């Protein structure tokens, strides 16, 4: 009976020595439900939610849930692609829509996963922090009775008094920045609290990043604007081609600034298999803030212009040929640059020229004109059979035009695509022989419309346009701070070992002092025995050694340190 008693106390003492080396929640092995009414259920549910096991499952679900969004087109990224997908997959579409697969990252189920995870995280951090503070305020636990059972152990005999040894040990350990104190016949010491602190910092930083991200989503604004060389933009809602904002964004929060695109310059690879691959894009702008003085800047692909809290990104570019349209009486009714949309990598571009008012035919009757334009910056040459561009820069530009008259349909009230002609109420001009009128022009050339209906000139001056994204997103700084804290915390958490060392010095049966030292870490580590050895050498040097103890009767194990070898 007495035997079981001692082993029991021994075990509990040993457990106490190793306890609280981390603040990880205790795993509950029994998964039985609670018996205590509603409160009991809530408690039980909360304990489950904040357990490591459930956190693990939620992490799994989070990564699993992120998968479909990378394989199925997402509305937030590319609406046109979603449209195309829906047209191509008639049976899948309703299922996907039900499952919110086109908006995975804002879907109810994805949000549920990460919200649960973060609730679990908070529910985990708070008690762990308290526990950790408690550990910092209390002292390292006393030595277990049998130090030789610990992962790293050493012993020697010395002529010094036990008190002397303990004093020296306390000094050595404190000198190595251990938290150490005397507990009975032994010194108890602990080091590496930064591991726990780092771990907590990391998990808190995750919350900070999530909050910063959410804040940014709610208060952001983002708009696009296409600008032709020489034109300008001022940051008000009406000036945007398209505009999106978070639900909490107020329009009066748009930064008061404006800029003018002086010139756009692109360079391209001229030789080799990658001929035509873009090399540099530069947009030279002049900008001013709130009516202040103008400043010059160059916007490049990776270098947005920062004005206050807004950033202006260079997104795309293309050509805007300048055309002049004269009416039947020879009066100029349109003169300007017409931005065209690129349709391939060599910037073959298409678009429409619309003459909405001011035009009169030779009889003085009001009408509208429309031209379909097909533009190439580098024309292959007449008779080459292709109207596709051969190179993205302006080497030998050409523009093919077809001309229409009638109603452009701009008054119908429906929003119109500026790059396309609505031909439902338009008639195409025909030449004398009744063929549809179409002509390819070189810069400087004109196309005369039949029956004195006027002319269109492709001017020598070809402009470029650039499109910009102007975004404002608060919380970026906070997210960055969170990210840096996360890495710092993680580094502390993964590279620092938390470990305990005990030094016991007692008088042996023969009156000689026996020193025992042992170390315990969170996991087996090669460093722990090394450190213990180091400490032992230092300490032994301060306590004069005595004759060795009689050799143990049993042979020592042949290879007592397999794990040490493995660590190498």
């Amino acid at each position, binding site marked *: 009976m007495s035997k079981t008693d001692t082993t029991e106390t021994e075990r509990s003492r040993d457990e106490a020595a190793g306890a609280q080396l*981390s603040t*990880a929640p205790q*795993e509950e092995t029994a998964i039985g439900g609670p018996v205590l009414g509603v409160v009991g259920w809530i408690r039980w549910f909360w304990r489950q939610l904040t357990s490591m*096991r459930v956190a693990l499952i939620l992490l*799994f679900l*989070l*990564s699993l849930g*992120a998968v479909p*969004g*990378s*394989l199925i087109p*997402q509305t937030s*990224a590319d609406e046109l692609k979603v449209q195309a997908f829906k047209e191509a997959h008639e049976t899948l579409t309703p299922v996907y829509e039900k499952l919110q697969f086109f908006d995975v*990252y804002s879907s109810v189920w994805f949000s549920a996963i990460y919200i649960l995870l973060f609730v679990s995280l908070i529910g985990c951090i708070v008690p762990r922090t308290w526990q950790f503070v408690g550990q910092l305020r209390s002292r390292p636990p006393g030595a277990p009775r049998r130090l*030789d059972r610990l*992962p*790293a*152990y*050493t012993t*020697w*005999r010395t002529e010094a008094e036990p008190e002397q040894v303990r004093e020296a040990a306390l000094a050595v350990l404190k000198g190595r920045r251990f938290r150490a104190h005397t507990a009975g016949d032994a010194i108890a010491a602990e080091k590496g609290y930064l591991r726990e602190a780092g771990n907590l910092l990391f998990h808190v930083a995750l919350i900070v990043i999530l909050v910063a991200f959410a804040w940014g989503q709610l208060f952001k604004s*983002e708009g696009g604007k296409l600008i032709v060389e020489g034109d300008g933009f001022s940051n008000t809602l009406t000036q945007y081609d398209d505009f999106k904002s978070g639900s909490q964004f107020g329009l009066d929060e748009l930064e008061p600034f404006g800029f003018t695109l002086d010139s756009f310059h692109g*360079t391209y690879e001229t030789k080799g*298999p*990658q001929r035509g691959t*873009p*090399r*540099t894009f530069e947009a030279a702008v002049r900008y001013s803030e709130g009516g202040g003085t103008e400043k010059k800047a160059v916007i*490049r*692909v*990776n270098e947005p212009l920062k004005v206050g809290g807004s950033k202006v*990104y260079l997104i795309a570019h293309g050509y805007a040929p300048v055309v002049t349209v004269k009416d039947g009486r020879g009066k100029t009714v349109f003169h300007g640059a017409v931005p065209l949309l690129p349709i391939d990598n060599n910037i073959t571009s298409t678009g429409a020229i619309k003459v909405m008012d001011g035009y009169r035919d030779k009889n003085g009757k009001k009408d509208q004109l429309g031209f379909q334009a097909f533009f190439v910056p580098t024309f292959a040459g007449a008779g080459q059979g292709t109207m596709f561009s051969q190179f993205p820069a302006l080497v030998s530009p050409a523009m093919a035009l077809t001309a229409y008259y009638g109603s452009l349909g701009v008054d119908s009230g429906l929003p119109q695509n500026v790059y396309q002609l609505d031909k439902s109420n338009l008639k195409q001009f025909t030449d004398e022989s009744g063929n549809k009128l179409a002509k390819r022009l070189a810069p400087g050339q004109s196309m005369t419309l039949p029956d004195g209906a006027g002319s269109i000139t492709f001017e020598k001056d070809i402009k470029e346009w650039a499109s910009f994204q102007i975004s404002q*997103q608060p919380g*970026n700084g906070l997210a960055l701070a969170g*990210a840096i804290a996360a*890495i710092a915390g*993680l580094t502390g958490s*993964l*590279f620092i070992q938390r470990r305990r060392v005990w030094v016991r010095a007692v008088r042996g049966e023969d009156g000689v002092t026996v020193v025992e030292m042992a170390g315990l870490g969170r996991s*087996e580590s090669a460093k722990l*025995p090394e450190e213990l*050895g180091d400490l*032992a*050498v230092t300490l*032994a040097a301060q306590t*004069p*050694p005595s*004759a060795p*103890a009689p050799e*143990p009767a*049993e042979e*020592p*194990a042949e290879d*007592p340190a*397999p*794990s040490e*070898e*493995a*660590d*190498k």
Partner: protein
Amino acid sequence: MILAATTNESLAKMSDLLIYSSMAVYTLAFFAHIAEWVLGSRSKVGRTAAALTQQASTPSVTVQVKQGGTTSVLDKPKIVTRSAAGTRDVPDGPGAAGGTVQGDLYGRIAVSLTVLAFAVEAAGVVSRALAVQRAPWGNMYEFSTTFSTVAVGTYLAFLLAKKNVRWIGLPLVTTVLLDLGLATTWLKTPSDQLVPALDSYWLWIHVSTAIFCGAVFYLAAVATALYLFRDSYENKLASGGTPSAFARSVLERLPSAASLDKFSYRVNAAVFPLWTFTIIAGAIWAGDAWGRYWGWDAKEVWSFITWVGYAAYLHARATAGWKGRKAAYIALIAFGCFLFNYYGVNIFVTSKHSYAGVE
């Protein structure tokens, strides 16, 4: 970065030649490793079995007092280590050479050849960088060659630090050959300049750490896979079964399951903060290039999944009932996600990150 720089043709040719030469040398290293394994097989086996069956009768480790005789000169005290309760105390296998002199000779030859191949391959990567006058990470061919160089370099660094890692040699050299084979055929891209979006100093930071993380995660994944085999082998022995002759010959020579597990944990844990940094650096770059730091682009999603996968692995190791084999499976899944992010997303998924150079 000098954008107008023209590709230096002869340097580029030399780089190609060096890469092909390194493949030839890796092939020789491969055969030397095979010789090491084959000739080492007639070795004293049964170390593990002996340890496992003996264990019950071995007395608990005895206290050992170490002192330099009666003189006052003190040796380093002998530190006795014990494994944590519940783990098997199994010695590591003798390595591929199986303790035989001949096997060991071939093993040494294999390592020397690997060093040579590494030097040649590294020269190939550097000359490619000089040829294009930029970081050699603009397309998948360049990623792949750098990737295997870094993996082999890390392995050699471990060897240099006297870590017990020679057992990685054969699987590593095999996969390096596979990787280079893919790179020089399917992924081959002529040397050239970068598109403007890639022209940023973030390329140096983000891509270099990404490649490094991948290469080192790979070494850990090899160890994890071997751990699973070795662990089954030890389980079988411990439960009195007789493993197959293949297992007895091959698995016996690997380090113990505990050592393999520890190795892969250490490596994964050490790389995880760097992987976190890689994602954050990518987000900062995306913020500069595209106006948003996180937009759930395919590449971003899979980096995130990989990250969560490794976080789950680290959690699993701290969760009762998930240590050991289950955690190992999670680590392998996480590495699978990394691979998919590299091959799968670059090739099959349209993403803003489509710089693969593969049509």
